[in-house]
Protein backbone atom coordinates (compact mmCIF):
# COMPACT_ATOMS: atom_id res chain seq x y z
CA UNK A 1 0.00 0.00 0.00
CA UNK A 2 1.44 3.32 -1.08
CA UNK A 3 1.03 6.79 0.25
CA UNK A 4 -1.02 7.67 -2.79
CA UNK A 5 -3.44 4.87 -1.97
CA UNK A 6 -3.80 6.14 1.55
CA UNK A 7 -4.33 9.73 0.40
CA UNK A 8 -6.87 8.83 -2.24
CA UNK A 9 -8.70 6.56 0.27
CA UNK A 10 -8.84 9.47 2.68
CA UNK A 11 -10.30 11.74 -0.02
CA UNK A 12 -12.95 9.17 -0.85
CA UNK A 13 -13.92 8.76 2.80
CA UNK A 14 -14.10 12.55 3.15
CA UNK A 15 -16.34 12.84 0.13
CA UNK A 16 -18.72 10.22 1.44
CA UNK A 17 -18.88 11.95 4.81
CA UNK A 18 -19.57 15.28 3.10
CA UNK A 19 -22.42 13.70 1.12
CA UNK A 20 -24.00 12.28 4.26
CA UNK A 21 -23.63 15.64 6.05
CA UNK A 22 -25.10 17.48 3.10
CA UNK A 23 -28.02 15.07 2.85
CA UNK A 24 -28.78 15.33 6.55
CA UNK A 25 -28.44 19.13 6.44
CA UNK A 26 -30.79 19.26 3.48
CA UNK A 27 -33.29 17.11 5.33
CA UNK A 28 -33.11 19.37 8.41
CA UNK A 29 -32.93 22.70 6.60
CA UNK A 30 -34.95 21.80 3.50
CA UNK A 31 -38.39 23.01 4.80
CA UNK A 32 -36.86 26.23 6.13
CA UNK A 33 -35.05 26.84 2.85
CA UNK A 34 -38.19 26.22 0.82
CA UNK A 35 -40.06 28.66 3.14
CA UNK A 36 -37.36 31.25 2.64
CA UNK A 37 -37.29 30.82 -1.09
CA UNK A 38 -41.00 30.91 -1.50
CA UNK A 39 -42.42 32.78 1.53
CA UNK A 40 -46.14 33.19 1.63
CA UNK A 41 -47.67 36.62 1.61
CA UNK A 42 -44.68 38.05 -0.22
CA UNK A 43 -45.21 39.42 -3.73
CA UNK A 44 -44.10 36.94 -6.36
CA UNK A 45 -41.59 39.17 -7.99
CA UNK A 46 -39.80 39.47 -4.63
CA UNK A 47 -39.65 35.72 -3.99
CA UNK A 48 -36.42 33.74 -4.64
CA UNK A 49 -38.07 30.54 -5.96
CA UNK A 50 -39.17 31.83 -9.34
CA UNK A 51 -35.68 33.16 -9.89
CA UNK A 52 -34.25 29.75 -9.10
CA UNK A 53 -36.72 28.05 -11.46
CA UNK A 54 -35.75 30.38 -14.27
CA UNK A 55 -32.07 29.58 -13.67
CA UNK A 56 -32.85 25.85 -13.82
CA UNK A 57 -34.72 26.14 -17.12
CA UNK A 58 -31.94 28.30 -18.56
CA UNK A 59 -29.47 25.49 -17.81
CA UNK A 60 -31.75 22.84 -19.26
CA UNK A 61 -32.17 24.86 -22.42
CA UNK A 62 -28.54 25.73 -22.96
CA UNK A 63 -27.00 22.52 -21.62
CA UNK A 64 -26.80 20.55 -24.92
CA UNK A 65 -25.29 23.44 -26.87
CA UNK A 66 -22.84 24.24 -24.13
CA UNK A 67 -21.76 20.59 -23.89
CA UNK A 68 -21.28 20.36 -27.64
CA UNK A 69 -19.25 23.53 -27.68
CA UNK A 70 -17.20 22.24 -24.83
CA UNK A 71 -16.53 18.92 -26.57
CA UNK A 72 -15.63 20.64 -29.84
CA UNK A 73 -13.27 23.03 -28.22
CA UNK A 74 -11.80 20.18 -26.19
CA UNK A 75 -11.28 18.13 -29.39
CA UNK A 76 -9.67 21.07 -31.10
CA UNK A 77 -7.52 21.63 -28.12
CA UNK A 78 -6.62 17.93 -28.03
CA UNK A 79 -5.82 17.96 -31.73
CA UNK A 80 -3.56 20.96 -31.33
CA UNK A 81 -1.98 19.31 -28.35
CA UNK A 82 -1.41 16.14 -30.36
CA UNK A 83 0.06 18.09 -33.25
CA UNK A 84 2.41 19.69 -30.82
CA UNK A 85 3.25 16.49 -28.99
CA UNK A 86 3.39 13.90 -31.78
CA UNK A 87 6.47 15.33 -33.50
CA UNK A 88 8.22 15.16 -30.20
CA UNK A 89 7.40 11.52 -29.58
CA UNK A 90 8.97 8.50 -31.36
CA UNK A 91 5.83 6.45 -31.93
CA UNK A 92 7.54 3.43 -33.47
CA UNK A 93 8.66 1.78 -30.23
CA UNK A 94 5.28 2.58 -28.71
CA UNK A 95 3.38 0.94 -31.55
CA UNK A 96 5.82 -1.95 -31.58
CA UNK A 97 5.27 -2.46 -27.90
CA UNK A 98 1.52 -2.42 -28.40
CA UNK A 99 1.74 -4.84 -31.28
CA UNK A 100 3.97 -7.21 -29.33
CA UNK A 101 1.41 -7.37 -26.58
CA UNK A 102 -1.51 -7.81 -28.87
CA UNK A 103 -2.62 -11.24 -30.13
CA UNK A 104 -3.33 -9.94 -33.61
CA UNK A 105 -4.46 -13.36 -34.87
CA UNK A 106 -7.05 -13.62 -32.16
CA UNK A 107 -8.19 -10.06 -32.74
CA UNK A 108 -8.44 -10.58 -36.49
CA UNK A 109 -10.25 -13.88 -36.16
CA UNK A 110 -12.63 -12.36 -33.64
CA UNK A 111 -13.26 -9.45 -35.97
CA UNK A 112 -13.74 -11.68 -38.98
CA UNK A 113 -15.95 -14.03 -37.00
CA UNK A 114 -18.12 -11.22 -35.78
CA UNK A 115 -18.44 -9.69 -39.25
CA UNK A 116 -20.97 -10.81 -41.87
CA UNK A 117 -18.54 -10.74 -44.78
CA UNK A 118 -20.95 -11.72 -47.55
CA UNK A 119 -22.75 -8.39 -47.86
CA UNK A 120 -19.45 -6.55 -47.56
CA UNK A 121 -17.91 -8.55 -50.39
CA UNK A 122 -21.09 -8.21 -52.45
CA UNK A 123 -21.03 -4.48 -52.01
CA UNK A 124 -17.35 -4.27 -52.87
CA UNK A 125 -17.74 -6.44 -55.97
CA UNK A 126 -20.76 -4.48 -57.17
CA UNK A 127 -18.82 -1.27 -56.79
CA UNK A 128 -15.84 -2.55 -58.78
CA UNK A 129 -15.53 -3.22 -62.53
CA UNK A 130 -13.64 -6.46 -62.03
CA UNK A 131 -13.14 -7.08 -65.75
CA UNK A 132 -11.56 -3.71 -66.25
CA UNK A 133 -9.48 -4.23 -63.14
CA UNK A 134 -8.15 -7.57 -64.39
CA UNK A 135 -7.56 -6.29 -67.91
CA UNK A 136 -5.63 -3.25 -66.76
CA UNK A 137 -3.79 -4.67 -63.76
CA UNK A 138 -3.04 -8.29 -64.67
CA UNK A 139 -0.41 -9.57 -67.12
CA UNK A 140 -2.89 -11.83 -68.82
CA UNK A 141 -0.38 -13.05 -71.40
CA UNK A 142 1.98 -14.17 -68.66
CA UNK A 143 -0.79 -15.85 -66.69
CA UNK A 144 -2.20 -17.70 -69.69
CA UNK A 145 1.29 -18.66 -70.90
CA UNK A 146 2.24 -20.05 -67.51
CA UNK A 147 -1.04 -21.96 -67.29
CA UNK A 148 -0.59 -23.41 -70.77
CA UNK A 149 2.99 -24.38 -69.97
CA UNK A 150 1.76 -26.50 -67.11
CA UNK A 151 -1.14 -28.10 -68.97
CA UNK A 152 -1.00 -30.75 -71.67
CA UNK A 153 -3.74 -29.12 -73.66
CA UNK A 154 -3.93 -31.89 -76.24
CA UNK A 155 -4.42 -34.49 -73.53
CA UNK A 156 -7.03 -32.30 -71.85
CA UNK A 157 -8.96 -31.95 -75.10
CA UNK A 158 -8.68 -35.66 -75.87
CA UNK A 159 -9.94 -36.71 -72.45
CA UNK A 160 -12.44 -33.96 -71.71
CA UNK A 161 -13.93 -33.14 -75.10
CA UNK A 162 -16.46 -35.29 -76.90
CA UNK A 163 -14.66 -35.00 -80.20
CA UNK A 164 -17.24 -37.11 -81.99
CA UNK A 165 -19.95 -34.64 -81.16
CA UNK A 166 -17.78 -31.67 -82.05
CA UNK A 167 -16.79 -33.10 -85.42
CA UNK A 168 -20.33 -34.25 -86.15
CA UNK A 169 -21.72 -30.83 -85.30
CA UNK A 170 -19.10 -29.15 -87.46
CA UNK A 171 -19.80 -31.50 -90.34
CA UNK A 172 -23.55 -30.95 -89.95
CA UNK A 173 -23.06 -27.25 -90.37
CA UNK A 174 -20.76 -27.58 -93.34
CA UNK A 175 -21.79 -28.24 -96.89
CA UNK A 176 -18.81 -30.41 -97.65
CA UNK A 177 -19.75 -30.94 -101.25
CA UNK A 178 -19.87 -27.21 -101.92
CA UNK A 179 -16.67 -26.73 -99.94
CA UNK A 180 -14.82 -29.37 -101.92
CA UNK A 181 -16.15 -27.97 -105.16
CA UNK A 182 -14.96 -24.51 -104.23
CA UNK A 183 -11.60 -25.34 -102.71
CA UNK A 184 -10.41 -28.49 -104.47
CA UNK A 185 -9.15 -28.70 -107.99
CA UNK A 186 -11.19 -31.77 -108.80
CA UNK A 187 -10.46 -31.58 -112.48
CA UNK A 188 -6.72 -31.46 -111.78
CA UNK A 189 -6.90 -34.41 -109.40
CA UNK A 190 -9.01 -36.42 -111.82
CA UNK A 191 -6.59 -35.66 -114.60
CA UNK A 192 -3.62 -36.71 -112.49
CA UNK A 193 -5.32 -39.94 -111.42
CA UNK A 194 -6.20 -40.75 -114.99
CA UNK A 195 -2.60 -40.08 -115.98
CA UNK A 196 -1.28 -42.25 -113.16
CA UNK A 197 -3.46 -45.26 -113.86
CA UNK A 198 -3.23 -44.87 -117.63
CA UNK A 199 -7.01 -45.12 -117.94
CA UNK A 200 -7.05 -44.82 -121.68
CA UNK A 201 -4.76 -47.78 -121.93
CA UNK A 202 -6.91 -49.87 -119.63
CA UNK A 203 -10.06 -49.01 -121.54
CA UNK A 204 -8.38 -49.80 -124.81
CA UNK A 205 -7.13 -53.11 -123.54
CA UNK A 206 -10.32 -54.10 -121.82
CA UNK A 207 -12.52 -53.34 -124.81
CA UNK A 208 -10.11 -54.40 -127.52
CA UNK A 209 -8.12 -57.44 -126.66
CA UNK A 210 -10.76 -59.29 -124.70
CA UNK A 211 -12.90 -60.19 -127.65
CA UNK A 212 -15.18 -62.47 -125.76
CA UNK A 213 -15.41 -64.88 -122.93
CA UNK A 214 -15.24 -67.74 -125.42
CA UNK A 215 -11.96 -66.54 -126.88
CA UNK A 216 -10.53 -66.09 -123.40
CA UNK A 217 -11.54 -69.62 -122.50
CA UNK A 218 -9.98 -71.05 -125.65
CA UNK A 219 -6.76 -69.12 -124.98
CA UNK A 220 -6.50 -70.28 -121.39
CA UNK A 221 -7.24 -73.87 -122.35
CA UNK A 222 -4.62 -73.77 -125.05
CA UNK A 223 -2.09 -72.34 -122.59
CA UNK A 224 -2.88 -75.22 -120.25
CA UNK A 225 -2.49 -77.61 -123.15
CA UNK A 226 0.86 -76.01 -124.03
CA UNK A 227 1.97 -76.58 -120.50
CA UNK A 228 0.86 -80.18 -120.51
CA UNK A 229 2.59 -80.90 -123.82
CA UNK A 230 5.76 -79.24 -122.56
CA UNK A 231 5.80 -81.25 -119.36
CA UNK A 232 5.18 -84.54 -121.16
CA UNK A 233 7.88 -83.71 -123.68
CA UNK A 234 10.35 -82.62 -121.02
CA UNK A 235 9.86 -85.91 -119.21
CA UNK A 236 11.21 -87.76 -122.22
CA UNK A 237 13.81 -85.27 -123.29
CA UNK A 238 16.71 -85.67 -120.94
CA UNK A 239 18.67 -82.74 -122.30
CA UNK A 240 15.91 -80.32 -121.35
CA UNK A 241 16.69 -79.60 -117.74
CA UNK A 242 14.47 -76.63 -117.43
CA UNK A 243 12.32 -75.26 -120.20
CA UNK A 244 13.11 -71.61 -120.70
CA UNK A 245 10.13 -69.74 -122.04
CA UNK A 246 11.02 -66.20 -121.16
CA UNK A 247 11.83 -63.93 -124.07
CA UNK A 248 13.31 -60.61 -124.91
CA UNK A 249 9.87 -59.22 -125.48
CA UNK A 250 9.70 -55.91 -123.74
CA UNK A 251 6.14 -55.15 -122.79
CA UNK A 252 5.63 -51.67 -121.45
CA UNK A 253 6.13 -51.46 -117.71
CA UNK A 254 7.84 -54.81 -117.61
CA UNK A 255 11.44 -55.43 -116.73
CA UNK A 256 13.55 -56.57 -119.61
CA UNK A 257 14.18 -60.30 -119.42
CA UNK A 258 17.52 -61.90 -120.09
CA UNK A 259 18.79 -61.77 -123.59
CA UNK A 260 19.61 -65.41 -123.96
CA UNK A 261 19.72 -65.18 -127.73
CA UNK A 262 22.56 -62.77 -127.91
Amino acid at each position, binding site marked *: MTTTDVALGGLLAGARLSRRVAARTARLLGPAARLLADPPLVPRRLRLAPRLDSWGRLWQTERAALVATGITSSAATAERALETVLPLVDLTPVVQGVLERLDLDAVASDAVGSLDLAPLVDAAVSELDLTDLVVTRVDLGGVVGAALDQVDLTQVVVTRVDLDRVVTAALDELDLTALVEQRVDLAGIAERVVDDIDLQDIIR*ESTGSMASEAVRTVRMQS*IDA*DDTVSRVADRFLLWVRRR*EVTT*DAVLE*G*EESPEKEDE
Partner: protein
Amino acid sequence: MSREQPHPPEAAEPGWAKALPREARTFQGNRAGFVTRLLANLVDVTLVSVTVGVLYVGWAGLLFVLSPSRFTFPSTPFAGLLGLGALVAWVSWTVSWATTGRTPGAHVMGIRVVNYHGQRMRWQGAALRALFCLGFLPGLLWVIISGENRSVQDLVLRTSVIYDWTNRPPPPAGS
Protein backbone atom coordinates in the same frame (compact mmCIF):
# COMPACT_ATOMS: atom_id res chain seq x y z
CA MET B 1 10.65 -79.69 -114.64
CA SER B 2 8.16 -76.98 -115.10
CA ARG B 3 7.55 -73.74 -116.89
CA GLU B 4 9.23 -70.68 -115.49
CA GLN B 5 7.04 -67.91 -114.17
CA PRO B 6 9.52 -65.11 -114.64
CA HIS B 7 7.14 -62.19 -114.30
CA PRO B 8 7.13 -59.81 -111.40
CA PRO B 9 4.50 -60.22 -108.71
CA GLU B 10 1.10 -58.67 -109.04
CA ALA B 11 1.97 -55.60 -107.04
CA ALA B 12 4.49 -54.57 -109.67
CA GLU B 13 2.18 -55.18 -112.60
CA PRO B 14 2.10 -52.45 -115.22
CA GLY B 15 -1.11 -50.65 -116.12
CA TRP B 16 -1.83 -52.69 -119.21
CA ALA B 17 -1.85 -55.92 -117.20
CA LYS B 18 -4.80 -54.74 -115.12
CA ALA B 19 -7.03 -55.05 -118.16
CA LEU B 20 -6.16 -58.72 -118.52
CA PRO B 21 -7.76 -61.60 -116.65
CA ARG B 22 -5.84 -62.35 -113.50
CA GLU B 23 -5.05 -65.91 -114.51
CA ALA B 24 -3.59 -64.79 -117.84
CA ARG B 25 -1.29 -62.08 -116.54
CA THR B 26 1.58 -64.33 -115.50
CA PHE B 27 1.91 -65.79 -118.99
CA GLN B 28 2.19 -62.53 -120.84
CA GLY B 29 5.51 -62.25 -122.63
CA ASN B 30 6.40 -65.92 -122.27
CA ARG B 31 7.03 -67.99 -125.37
CA ALA B 32 3.88 -69.72 -126.51
CA GLY B 33 3.67 -73.49 -126.55
CA PHE B 34 2.93 -75.94 -129.29
CA VAL B 35 -0.84 -76.24 -128.96
CA THR B 36 -1.55 -72.53 -129.04
CA ARG B 37 0.68 -71.99 -132.02
CA LEU B 38 -0.78 -74.99 -133.85
CA LEU B 39 -4.30 -73.68 -133.31
CA ALA B 40 -3.27 -70.25 -134.52
CA ASN B 41 -1.74 -71.81 -137.63
CA LEU B 42 -4.89 -73.83 -138.25
CA VAL B 43 -6.96 -70.68 -138.09
CA ASP B 44 -4.57 -68.97 -140.49
CA VAL B 45 -4.55 -71.91 -142.91
CA THR B 46 -8.31 -72.04 -142.78
CA LEU B 47 -8.52 -68.35 -143.54
CA VAL B 48 -6.07 -68.76 -146.43
CA SER B 49 -8.17 -71.62 -147.76
CA VAL B 50 -11.31 -69.56 -147.50
CA THR B 51 -9.55 -66.70 -149.25
CA VAL B 52 -8.43 -69.00 -152.05
CA GLY B 53 -11.99 -70.30 -152.30
CA VAL B 54 -13.35 -66.78 -152.47
CA LEU B 55 -10.82 -65.89 -155.15
CA TYR B 56 -11.76 -68.99 -157.13
CA VAL B 57 -15.45 -68.22 -156.88
CA GLY B 58 -14.77 -64.62 -157.76
CA TRP B 59 -12.76 -65.71 -160.80
CA ALA B 60 -15.55 -68.07 -161.85
CA GLY B 61 -18.14 -65.29 -161.37
CA LEU B 62 -16.07 -62.96 -163.53
CA LEU B 63 -15.89 -65.60 -166.27
CA PHE B 64 -19.66 -66.10 -165.97
CA VAL B 65 -20.29 -62.40 -166.33
CA LEU B 66 -17.99 -62.11 -169.32
CA SER B 67 -19.49 -65.06 -171.28
CA PRO B 68 -22.48 -66.62 -169.56
CA SER B 69 -23.34 -68.84 -172.50
CA ARG B 70 -20.01 -70.60 -172.58
CA PHE B 71 -19.50 -70.63 -168.81
CA THR B 72 -18.00 -73.64 -167.12
CA PHE B 73 -16.21 -73.66 -163.79
CA PRO B 74 -12.55 -73.04 -164.48
CA SER B 75 -10.50 -76.17 -164.12
CA THR B 76 -7.61 -75.16 -161.95
CA PRO B 77 -4.89 -77.65 -161.13
CA PHE B 78 -4.46 -78.41 -157.43
CA ALA B 79 -0.91 -77.19 -157.61
CA GLY B 80 -2.21 -73.87 -158.88
CA LEU B 81 -4.59 -73.53 -155.96
CA LEU B 82 -1.82 -74.53 -153.63
CA GLY B 83 0.45 -71.94 -155.16
CA LEU B 84 -2.25 -69.31 -154.86
CA GLY B 85 -2.79 -70.25 -151.24
CA ALA B 86 0.92 -70.03 -150.58
CA LEU B 87 1.03 -66.61 -152.17
CA VAL B 88 -1.91 -65.38 -150.13
CA ALA B 89 -0.38 -66.80 -146.99
CA TRP B 90 3.04 -65.34 -147.71
CA VAL B 91 1.68 -61.87 -148.36
CA SER B 92 -0.74 -61.83 -145.44
CA TRP B 93 1.72 -63.28 -142.95
CA THR B 94 4.48 -60.92 -144.04
CA VAL B 95 2.23 -57.92 -143.68
CA SER B 96 0.90 -59.17 -140.34
CA TRP B 97 4.28 -59.89 -138.77
CA ALA B 98 5.84 -56.66 -139.99
CA THR B 99 2.96 -54.48 -138.77
CA THR B 100 1.10 -55.86 -135.75
CA GLY B 101 3.22 -58.93 -135.24
CA ARG B 102 0.19 -61.16 -135.34
CA THR B 103 -1.73 -62.97 -138.04
CA PRO B 104 -5.48 -63.37 -137.67
CA GLY B 105 -4.98 -66.77 -136.09
CA ALA B 106 -2.37 -65.36 -133.71
CA HIS B 107 -4.82 -62.60 -132.85
CA VAL B 108 -7.48 -65.13 -131.94
CA MET B 109 -5.07 -67.14 -129.82
CA GLY B 110 -3.44 -64.09 -128.22
CA ILE B 111 0.11 -64.61 -129.43
CA ARG B 112 2.56 -62.40 -131.29
CA VAL B 113 5.80 -62.80 -133.25
CA VAL B 114 8.73 -60.63 -132.15
CA ASN B 115 12.39 -60.51 -133.08
CA TYR B 116 15.27 -61.33 -130.76
CA HIS B 117 14.96 -57.90 -129.15
CA GLY B 118 11.31 -58.38 -128.41
CA GLN B 119 10.50 -55.88 -131.14
CA ARG B 120 8.37 -55.93 -134.26
CA MET B 121 10.04 -57.73 -137.17
CA ARG B 122 11.46 -55.89 -140.15
CA TRP B 123 9.74 -56.39 -143.50
CA GLN B 124 12.49 -58.51 -144.95
CA GLY B 125 12.67 -60.65 -141.85
CA ALA B 126 8.92 -61.09 -141.85
CA ALA B 127 8.93 -62.04 -145.55
CA LEU B 128 11.75 -64.51 -144.98
CA ARG B 129 10.00 -66.07 -141.98
CA ALA B 130 6.72 -66.39 -143.92
CA LEU B 131 8.59 -68.11 -146.74
CA PHE B 132 10.38 -70.39 -144.31
CA CYS B 133 7.15 -71.33 -142.53
CA LEU B 134 5.42 -72.13 -145.84
CA GLY B 135 8.36 -74.12 -147.08
CA PHE B 136 8.91 -76.13 -143.93
CA LEU B 137 5.67 -76.57 -142.01
CA PRO B 138 7.04 -79.36 -139.75
CA GLY B 139 9.39 -76.78 -138.27
CA LEU B 140 6.64 -76.05 -135.78
CA LEU B 141 7.12 -79.46 -134.20
CA TRP B 142 10.46 -78.34 -132.83
CA VAL B 143 8.51 -76.31 -130.28
CA ILE B 144 7.79 -79.57 -128.47
CA ILE B 145 11.37 -80.66 -128.45
CA SER B 146 12.99 -77.29 -127.93
CA GLY B 147 13.88 -76.30 -124.46
CA GLU B 148 12.73 -72.79 -125.22
CA ASN B 149 9.40 -73.27 -127.02
CA ARG B 150 10.95 -72.32 -130.34
CA SER B 151 10.27 -73.66 -133.81
CA VAL B 152 13.01 -74.29 -136.35
CA GLN B 153 12.13 -70.99 -137.98
CA ASP B 154 12.47 -69.24 -134.65
CA LEU B 155 15.87 -70.79 -134.07
CA VAL B 156 17.17 -69.87 -137.48
CA LEU B 157 15.72 -66.36 -137.62
CA ARG B 158 16.06 -65.74 -133.89
CA THR B 159 12.43 -64.88 -133.43
CA SER B 160 9.98 -65.71 -130.67
CA VAL B 161 6.25 -66.27 -130.52
CA ILE B 162 4.98 -64.92 -127.23
CA TYR B 163 1.69 -64.83 -125.38
CA ASP B 164 0.45 -61.26 -125.70
CA TRP B 165 -3.22 -60.66 -125.13
CA THR B 166 -2.93 -56.91 -125.35
CA ASN B 167 -3.63 -54.87 -128.47
CA ARG B 168 -0.47 -52.93 -128.00
CA PRO B 169 1.76 -53.41 -131.03
CA PRO B 170 5.36 -54.23 -130.16
CA PRO B 171 7.94 -51.47 -130.59
CA PRO B 172 9.31 -51.25 -134.13
CA ALA B 173 12.58 -52.96 -134.90
CA GLY B 174 15.65 -50.95 -133.96
CA SER B 175 13.79 -48.70 -131.49
